[in-house]
């Protein structure tokens, strides 16, 4: 549509303005990045000193689940809120199975039979590996979640097994587990979110397990709940009395 007179069409003007804005921002950001220079300034050394008391040997996991456990805790709350908001929007208290013809096509069948166990094994392996090598709760949860989504898409029974209470329970597991452990320790006199040095490793693994399960179920819940429920829509054209 090149016949538009450039200035009359607001869209065009906005395009120009945003281009100028982005270019300006880019220039400013480049100046900032260059000004940052190359000498290291971070907390690497400090983390290295304290890593042995943290109960795990892989630095990111140590930072994630011990030094900055508060961040991770709130982050799991964000995930819980997103899943819950999507479910509430869709008025779904559970994620029942779809009445799917079992033969979803031979190729998909074969792929599912092969991939799902592999994904679950790698997920658990990643979880276990997390304490001392690249891996961790979220990656494991994501992989297992992917397996569950694959099962659901190809019509096999997956998250639908969970009834309403179980679904809420698993969505809550990560956050509530973390909260429970932290509160119990806090009442026992430790500073909040501090693990007793000798059981630090064990507690972290328990928390990681819960987080992995919550992340997996939340991802499937997010995937399923994203679809609008056909008969819960506002029929009236005007936006209700809201």
């Amino acid at each position, binding site marked *: 549509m090149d016949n538009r007179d450039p200035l009359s069409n*607001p*869209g065009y003007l*906005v*395009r120009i*303005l*945003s*281009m100028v*804005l*982005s*270019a300006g*921002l*880019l220039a400013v*950001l*480049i100046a900032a*990045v*260059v000004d*940052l220079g*190359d000498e*290291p*300034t*971070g*907390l*690497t*050394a400090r*983390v*290295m000193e304290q890593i042995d008391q943290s109960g795990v040997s892989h*630095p*990111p996991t*140590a*930072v*994630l689940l011990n*030094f*900055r456990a508060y*961040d*991770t805790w709130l*982050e*799991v709350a*964000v*995930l819980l*809120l*997103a*899943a819950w*908001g*999507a479910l509430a*929007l*869709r008025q779904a208290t559970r994620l029942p199975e779809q009445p799917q013809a079992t033969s979803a096509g031979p190729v998909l069948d074969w792929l599912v039979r092969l991939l799902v166990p592999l994904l679950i094994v790698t997920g658990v392996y990643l979880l276990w590996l997390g304490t001392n090598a690249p891996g*961790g709760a*979220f990656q494991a949860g994501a992989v297992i979640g992917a397996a569950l989504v694959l099962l659901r898409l190809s019509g096999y029974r997956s998250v639908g097994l969970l009834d309403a209470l179980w679904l809420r329970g698993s969505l809550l597991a990560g956050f509530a587990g973390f909260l429970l452990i932290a509160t119990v320790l806090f009442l026992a006199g430790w500073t909040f979110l501090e693990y007793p040095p000798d059981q630090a490793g064990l507690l972290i693994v328990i928390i990681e397990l819960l987080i992995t399960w919550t*992340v997996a179920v939340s991802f499937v819940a*997010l*995937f399923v*709940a*994203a*679809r*609008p429920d*056909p008969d819960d*829509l*506002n029929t009236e054209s005007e936006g209700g009395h809201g």
Partner: protein
Amino acid sequence: MSLFLIYALAAVGLFAICLHAIITRSHLLRKILALNMMGSSVFLLLIAIAYRNSVEETADPVPHAMVLTGIVVAVSATAFALALARRYHAETGETELSDGDGST
């Protein structure tokens, strides 16, 4: 031209492109897509900073933790935004916010 600078400049460039796209594209999915890519570009910058701060081969774990948290937060927000956008589309059949002037 250290490794950090290459990826930092790339990240900053991606951020600017995504900002431009968010402002000009009015289709909801494209906006959410652009927001996601903007998030990834910030995470790339953080990881580049982590690389710069590395002490004999181990990169700075704090930005790593930040990026991991950021990724999960970004995906939660995206999923929720998609749920809302699809509900909006199912009700109205439109893929753009009605009087959404150029910006979001």
